């Protein structure tokens, strides 16, 4: 049942899946919209508030996606558009001012407010950019008001974070310092601290994180800025950084021991860190990660896995599970495949892996049932129905909420995939 684990050749094949044809589908997409990103972004930026300008559906979505986890008063809300707004009976600027005033009165701790566009606000062409500028004028210096769109017609799930970070970059101060490094993509604080320590040990200075934990401490950006992407879904943010002269350091994503080392190496190489110093900074972590991963190999090696598209983390996760844990990839679905950012991931995937982009959920379910994978990674809407059909599933949303990047989370990440199989084994008698 379990194939013996073999460490893949240290030099992956030059091609992997780079030139692989991709199954592109355009049917029903069983995915969240970009508003969902608010659930983790509001935890990350501790004095920011996210105000969705949308419908009751938007409010209900965020509540349903987040409601089971959040018990205190959240730092997000929805300004629900009603028929008076649509009929033009109410002045939408006045309405928005009133709502924002009520909100800011209630929450004196807020220093940054995001107006978040939604499907209805996009369709009625509500100009939230202009509204944000107007409200900024009213509320600065206490509160800075920015805007981005998390609408389902434009963004899929994690793309909401991309849009938010792109708005932060557009608002960033120019950087006048010499070479600096920005790690882009929301990471949990514990992961951020670990990376910070490793960069310090490598002697890389001026490291910033986007988003920062506080609204007032977002990193500055300039032509000497180099950035590492910590998440694979940051297309617009990368473009905004490029426009300010910053340059991307291409790397695989920091998932697993190998992924993390390769990601750190990209920064080390640019900043001229010697091999010895790099080894000194990373070897212990790399070994710890390998040790933690070894504990999960018995469960995972040789098992087949099928990814439904969700967070765009699917390709890096597939690479990690294949390369470091010996899992067999049946189908790797992703909402979008950004070939440039994922080039090094594609190179490391085994040739012949079925890659799919977009979705037609009923057809994909047919393929999944046909393939009978040992483990299915899918959204919350599909997980219980698939479990009831006898599949083991991993909810993809947990991969976005849980700290999974870096050496000391590699074992936890493997554990997220091992647990459903473990559970299945324990509950086999039911």
């Amino acid at each position, binding site marked *: 049942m379990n194939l013996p684990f073999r460490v893949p050749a240290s030099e992956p094949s030059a091609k992997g899946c780079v030139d692989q044809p991709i199954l592109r589908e355009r049917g029903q997409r069983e*995915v*969240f919209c970009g508003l969902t990103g608010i659930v983790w972004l509001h935890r990350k930026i501790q004095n920011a508030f996210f105000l969705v300008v949308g419908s009751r559906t938007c409010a209900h979505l965020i509540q349903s996606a987040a409601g089971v986890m959040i018990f205190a*008063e959240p730092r997000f809300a929805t*300004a629900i558009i009603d028929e008076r707004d649509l009929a033009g009976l109410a002045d939408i600027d006045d*309405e928005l001012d009133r*709502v924002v005033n009520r909100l800011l009165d209630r929450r004196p701790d807020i220093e940054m407010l995001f107006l978040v566009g939604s499907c*209805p606000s996009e*369709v009625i062409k509500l100009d939230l950019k202009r509204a944000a500028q107007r409200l900024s004028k009213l509320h600065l210096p206490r509160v800075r008001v920015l805007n981005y769109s998390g609408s389902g*017609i434009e963004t899929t799930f994690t793309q909401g974070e991309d849009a938010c970070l792109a708005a932060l970059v557009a608002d960033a101060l120019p950087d006048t310092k010499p070479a600096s490094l920005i790690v882009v993509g929301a990471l949990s604080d514990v992961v951020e601290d670990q990376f910070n320590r490793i960069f310090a040990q490598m002697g890389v200075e001026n490291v910033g994180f986007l988003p920062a934990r506080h609204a007032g401490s977002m990193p500055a950006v300039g032509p000497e800025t180099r950035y590492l992407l910590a998440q694979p879904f940051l297309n617009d943010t990368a473009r905004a950084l490029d426009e300010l002269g910053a340059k991307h350091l291409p790397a695989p994503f920091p998932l697993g021991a190998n992924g993390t080392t390769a990601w750190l190496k990209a920064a080390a190489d640019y900043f001229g860190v010697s091999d010895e110093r790099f080894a000194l900074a990373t070897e212990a972590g790399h070994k710890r990660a390998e040790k933690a991963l070894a504990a999960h190999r018995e469960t995972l090696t040789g098992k087949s896995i099928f990814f439904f598209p969700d967070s765009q983390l699917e390709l890096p996760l597939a690479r990690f599970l294949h390369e470091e844990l010996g899992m067999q990839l049946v189908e790797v679905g992703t909402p979008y495949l950004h070939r440039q950012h994922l080039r090094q991931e594609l190179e490391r995937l085994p040739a012949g892996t079925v890659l799919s982009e977009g979705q037609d959920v009923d057809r994909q379910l047919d393929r999944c049932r046909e393939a009978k994978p040992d483990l299915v990674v899918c959204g*919350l809407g599909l997980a219980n129905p698939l479990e009831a059909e006898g599949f083991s599933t991993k909810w993809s949303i947990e991969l976005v909420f849980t700290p999974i990047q870096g050496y000391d989370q590699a074992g936890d990440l493997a554990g997220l995939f091992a647990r459903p199989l473990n559970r299945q084994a324990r509950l086999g008698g039911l």
Partner: protein
Amino acid sequence: MQLTLWTYEGPPHVGAMRIATAMKGLHYVLHAPQGDTYADLLFTMIERRNVRPPVTYTTFQARDLGGDTAELFKNACFEAYERFKPEAMIVGASCTAELIQDDPGGLAQALALPIPVVPLELPSYQKKENWGASETFYRIVRALCPANSNPSNRNPKSCNILGPTALGFRHRDDLNEIRRLLERMGVTVNVVAPFDARPSDIARLGDAAFNVILYPEIAENAGRWLEKNCAQPMTSIVPIGIGGTRDFIAEVGRLSGIDTAEILAEETSRLPWYSKSVDSTYLTGKRVFIFGDATHVLAAERMARTEFGFDVVGIGTYSREYARQVREAAARLGIEALITDDYLDVEARIAELHPELILGTQMERHIAKRLGLPCAVISAPVHVQDFPARYSPQMGFEGANVIFDTWVHPLMMGLEEHLIHMFRDDAEFHDGASSHLSHATKKAPMPDPVAELHPVAAVPLEAGWAPEAEKELKKIPFFVRGKAKRNTERYAHDLGLAMITIETLYDAKAHFSR
């Protein structure tokens, strides 16, 4: 534009989904952008359904808006028919699709499918979830049930049970309880709808003599149509609580011609005795605040007064469609009802009234936790905790037992906490041996559902108490000490006093015992 932190109801198309998901052999094609598919997880995660809701979404994107979203809808509709082969279909739009005005009803009709297709018009910017469920059920009944005004060949002792849906607050168990009750009375249940009904079952609703309306928010409109077009009378009493259930039995007796004396005599609920037993003395006169959907609020108001001996100090609902009934109930109590779907208004009212128990929804549970008040959940919006593994109806005599436990436990836990506090100087009661509540609170930030449910924890004295006053407070019997402390602090706050002295303590006592 309304600022909304939490919403009591979803949009109306979620109400339509609750009907579609409750039924079998029905499929819902929803014109909606990607992202609206989140609604599936309400059913698969919160209710733990083991199949996907029977809903196909068009999931259009921005690039489709320039093209032909109408064609997209027609394709989705046709493919859904081909794949799922339903007996009937409902079609409609979510909030965004409503704005692009593609007319799903007309488009579906143009496909000329060989099954009934029921178009839904659910105005998302005016209406909400329960209205959407009610309208959808009404449209389905109207479209699929032939008008039949000849009641002569009906069994007078037969009824339909209308109202239970998917994602309903205890609907699964309420249905069991009431079905059993009706069967014990000798009433035959012809059709239950929408729960587990097929479109073909809707077509034979007219075979029953009368309709039992379990949840007026969902089924009253359909019931009225059946009353008019099929000459079926319907029940008007919701069987929650001892009084409610007795009245319901009497009403069913009148509608079916069954003698109810026997069934009333063998009533089995423990609530009447438990409420009368001396143990429950401390419940008498507790000040309660009630908020939720109208059906559960009205039932809770009656139970609170007449079956627990509470004082109802505040009452309200988010069901605007039933505002009148709730206002009338409030007027009988000489108070003003709070009709709102704004969570902040409810929070403000609770803070102002400072009740001793909140009977509310999951939202009020959050409020209660923040204000340190006991709370029991009586109504939707639903939470995963509202689908317990055990049998746990709200309706009928067993439902009354469940409600007794549900309402009393948060208060009992408070009492237990006071006892521990009272004996805290005894050797057995060192810090490490405190109740499970104080352990749970230490485990933050991970929310512990047990601690969540029983938010009455010992609150340390705030600054402002003079040492002698604090000593005096400790002499007050433990079971009223919390109340005395709160009242005194409130009194001091209202008078703007910086320091609470012994005099303040007794002034406050006099003030509140008016």
